[in-house]
Structures are given as structure tokens and as C-alpha cells.
């Protein structure tokens, strides 16, 4: 049963992509999001595709996990395609039926835009597939560090995130337990009119809140007993370290960007 409770979609592994510093991955994705929109011809798309596919294969994440990750967005990708296909009125008419005219420009636009979308999702989902939530938290804490000067509670935010992550499986188990108990008392969560089903949530939510508050209180006490007094003067066990491989990847990525600009200009 516990297996169903794996948080996020992290797929354990030991590939180069897994071992990269999470900050490296986040930074590269950040820039990738921008440069995807700079692609304007087959060559430039080609470069981005090679980069995305290379990352995917290096990560050794089984294809089915990636496809599973894409399922919720297939609809969006197809919708974007169709929208562009029908709305764009450039180039020559290549097909015509009823009131619709499909232009060659529309077809190209549709393919290009939805392909951009696909690349974006592929690369971002690689982040969550190869990085544990706690690593992402660490990276965010570190990258937001400069905001501390403006009294932004960076440490508190990161602690909140990591405690939330820690308690997700616990609360899921609890939800499961309470819904079973209430079902045994005759609550029907699955059938009946919508109004009844909404009403059925109350006996589930109230106990969940009560227990979450109790947990929070006990956890706060346990943290205090263990000497927690805020971020001041704290050391950290988890340490992010930029290694040679991170630098290598940055250089490689710089070439990708350079290649992209060349492809834009010279073709």
C-alpha cells in the first residue's frame, strides 16, 4: 500500500542527470524555457530536440514514466495544434472543408508551437523525475538566499516545504483510515447525488483537520525540545556542491545556446 504513496514522480537512479546539482538543473531549465521560444527553423528546433532527447536518454528514466508524466498535457498539446491549424491564415490553402480553410502556414505554426510545448514539458518533467522533492527544496532555499537581505523568510519557507513533504504520506494514510472508518458507519463517498457526496466530505475533513492540528502541535513541541529556535546559527547536513560535471553541463548548454543563435542567423 505504501508504494501508492510515493510523492511526486521521482524515479530513483544514479545517472549523470540524477547526480547533477539541483541548482544546475533548475537554472538550465529556466534558460531552456526562454530559448525554446527563440527557435524558428528546422535547424534550431533540431538542436533543442537533440538536447532534450540526449538529457532524457542520459537520465535512464524508463520511457513509460515520461509518457505517464505527459498524459495530463497531451490534450493541451493537441489543442494548441488544432487552434493554430484553424486560426492562422498564412501561406497557401492546402485543404478546405465546410467553413474551414487550412493554410500551409497554419500547419507549420501548429506543429512548431505544439512541438515547443512538448519540449518544454519533457524537460521540466525530467527535473521532477530525477530530483527528489527535498533536493528541489534545498535548491530553492539556496537560490532564494539573496532575498534574505530583504527580510524574506527563506529558511522558514524551506522548512515549511520540507515538513509538508515529510507529512504528505502520513496524511494520505490518515485520509485512507478515516474514510474507511466513516464508510463503515454508513457514509457513501462514491455514489448518490452530488449534494449528498459533498455532505459526505464533512465527516472526513473534520477529523483530518483535528488530527493535522494535533500533529502540528506535537511536532512543534518535539522540535522545540530538540533545540529548534529558528534559522539563526544553524548548520546544515545537506550540502549542495557544484562539481566538475555541473560545470561541464553548463559549458555544453552554452554551446547549445550558441548553436541555436547560429541556426537562427545563418539559415
Amino acid at each position, binding site marked *: 500500500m*505504501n508504494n501508492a504513496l510515493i510523492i511526486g514522480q521521482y524515479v530513483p537512479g544514479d545517472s549523470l542527470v540524477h547526480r547533477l546539482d539541483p541548482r544546475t538543473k533548475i537554472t538550465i531549465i529556466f534558460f531552456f524555457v526562454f530559448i525554446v521560444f527563440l527557435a524558428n527553423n528546422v535547424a534550431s528546433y533540431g538542436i533543442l530536440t537533440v538536447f532534450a532527447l540526449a538529457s532524457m536518454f542520459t537520465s535512464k528514466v524508463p520511457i513509460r514514466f515520461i509518457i505517464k508524466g505527459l498524459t495530463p498535457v497531451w490534450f493541451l498539446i493537441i489543442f494548441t495544434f488544432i487552434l493554430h491549424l484553424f486560426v492562422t491564415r498564412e501561406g497557401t490553402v492546402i485543404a478546405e472543408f465546410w467553413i474551414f480553410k487550412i493554410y500551409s502556414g497554419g500547419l507549420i505554426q501548429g506543429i512548431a508551437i505544439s512541438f515547443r510545448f512538448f519540449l518544454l514539458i519533457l524537460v521540466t518533467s525530467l527535473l521532477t523525475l530525477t530530483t527528489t522533492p527535498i533536493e528541489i527544496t534545498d535548491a530553492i532555499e539556496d537560490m532564494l538566499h539573496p532575498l534574505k537581505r530583504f527580510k524574506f523568510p527563506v529558511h522558514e519557507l524551506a522548512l515549511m516545504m520540507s515538513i509538508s513533504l*515529510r507529512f504528505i*504520506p*502520513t496524511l494520505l494514510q490518515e485520509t485512507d483510515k478515516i474514510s474507511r472508518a466513516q464508510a463503515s458507519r454508513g457514509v457513501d463517498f462514491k455514489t448518490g447525488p452530488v449534494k449528498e457526496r459533498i455532505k459526505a466530505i464533512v465527516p472526513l475533513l473534520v477529523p483530518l483537520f483535528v488530527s493535522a492540528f494535533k500533529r502540528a502541535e506535537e511536532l512543534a513541541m518535539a*522540535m522545540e525540545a*530538540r533545540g529548534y529556535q529558528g534559522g539563526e546559527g*544553524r*548548520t546544515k*547536513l545537506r550540502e549542495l556542491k557544484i562539481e566538475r560535471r555541473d560545470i561541464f553541463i553548463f559549458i555544453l548548454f552554452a554551446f547549445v545556446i550558441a548553436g541555436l543563435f547560429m541556426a537562427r542567423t545563418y539559415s
Partner: protein
Amino acid sequence: MRKKLVEFRNVSFRYGDEGPWVLKNCSFEIYENEWVAIIGHNGSGKSTIAKLLNGLLFPQEGEIIIDGKQVNEASIWSIRKEVGMVFQNPDNQFVGATVQDDVAFGMENRGVPRDEMKKRITETLSAVRMQDYRLIEPHRLSGGQKQRVAIASVLAISPKVLILDEATAMLDPSGRKEIMDTVGSIQHLNGLSLITITHDLQEVVQADRVIVMNSGEIWKEALPREIFREKDALRKIGLDVPFVAILADELKQAGVNLQAAPLNHEELLEDLWTLHSKT
């Protein structure tokens, strides 16, 4: 002379100014390298003692001295360094994302350098035999394993006093045994004094001394063996009487002339054997 580590001087406590007294005029002392069990029914005030010991609560009357320092607002952070605590619910005290993060939490709070942390994580996880679980997330651990990690987390800050506040109450028998074995094996580590709070008389057998609480007062302070003799009185204050004590009592009534109050099966059998072979 043994060093006095904990002292309660006429301590009384209640929640708010109007509430009933949860603790009434309690005084006791606990020494270095000593294992004291505090036992009592639910609501007898035993857990309040634990919270007073490391400044999670403060008494209205009396004073609490830990290793020569009085517990008050000003001293709590240094007191908490010396008094470590393991609570009842294994889930609600696990802070870290993995076992090693949880052990590190207390050390991080105290600014322990990274290399030192790593060393102590290895040491304390071995002491509770959880060294193979360093990178495991809490939801993959059993209750007993989580409590062992909690013990390791406390040991990592090398406290002088370790309190287990009903740390076994939510565990199954095998989890309970895990914890009692662990506690038995770490007890003589660096002269730690150990306070176990429980309502299970089986768990006081190994202690050096027992404090029995009843309705906020110290009902009795004695050796486990002496406590076991008070069969009827124990029942009256809502505690269970161990099988050995009941059997010894029945044997006496059946006319078997037992010498002492036995603490476990082996002692009783030994006693019976002596009687048996004398004749």
C-alpha cells in the same frame, strides 16, 4: 558520591490559573548513571513531569534543578541540550525527510559542524542498530524503527538525561521489545541518566528505582521489587500487577513458603527450586 543530575523541589503545576493541580508538591532526585521509571495511570501527572524537565512547561510553585542549573526561561536552551526527550507518537516527532536528516536536526539547531554531524550520525544510528536505514524515508519505517531513530537523534546531542515519555505506548509488542532492548543497551553510555515514563509495569523491571504517581502526587518511591509487592494497592490506582507477583502471592496463600518477592520468572523458579531441594 554520586552526582545529582535532576532535582524536583516541592514542584506544583497546573494549566492556567484556575485549573486543577496536575502535580502537587512533588520532590525527588535522580542521579548520574541511574535508570528511574516513572509509572502511573493516564492523567496521573507523569507526562507533565517530563515536560517540566526540559522547560516545555514551567511550575507555578517549587523549583527544578538540572545539573546544578535552575530551569527557567533564561536557561531552557542550555537545559534542552542536557535533557533529551522521546515522545509518544513516532510520527509526530520525525522532522527530517530521511533517517539521517532527522538525526541531524537537533545537531543542526545547535550549529554542530558538518563533519562532526556525519560522524555522530554513524555512531548513534549504530547504537540503536539503524545504520542500514540512513537514507530511508520515515513512511517506510515501522513505529519501533521510528522511535529508535528518535532515540538516536537525542543521543546525537549527547545529553546527560534521556527521557522516554511513553515512547512505547503506541507500538506493538515487537516494537516495544525493540525499544526496551535499545534502551537497555545504551543505558550505560557515558553515564546517561535515564527516565522512562510508562503505565506498563513490565517496563519498570530493569529500572534501578521506580516512582509511582497517583493523581498528581508521588505515591511511592522504591525499588521495582518492593513495588511489585503492593499488589492490591497497585490495582487500586489503576495499574496492572505482573503475573509473577500474582503467582507468588497465590503460592504463599497455598502454603508455599517463598523467601523474597520475585521480580521475574527466573527468580521465582530459583526460590521454588531451593524449597524443592531442601526437602
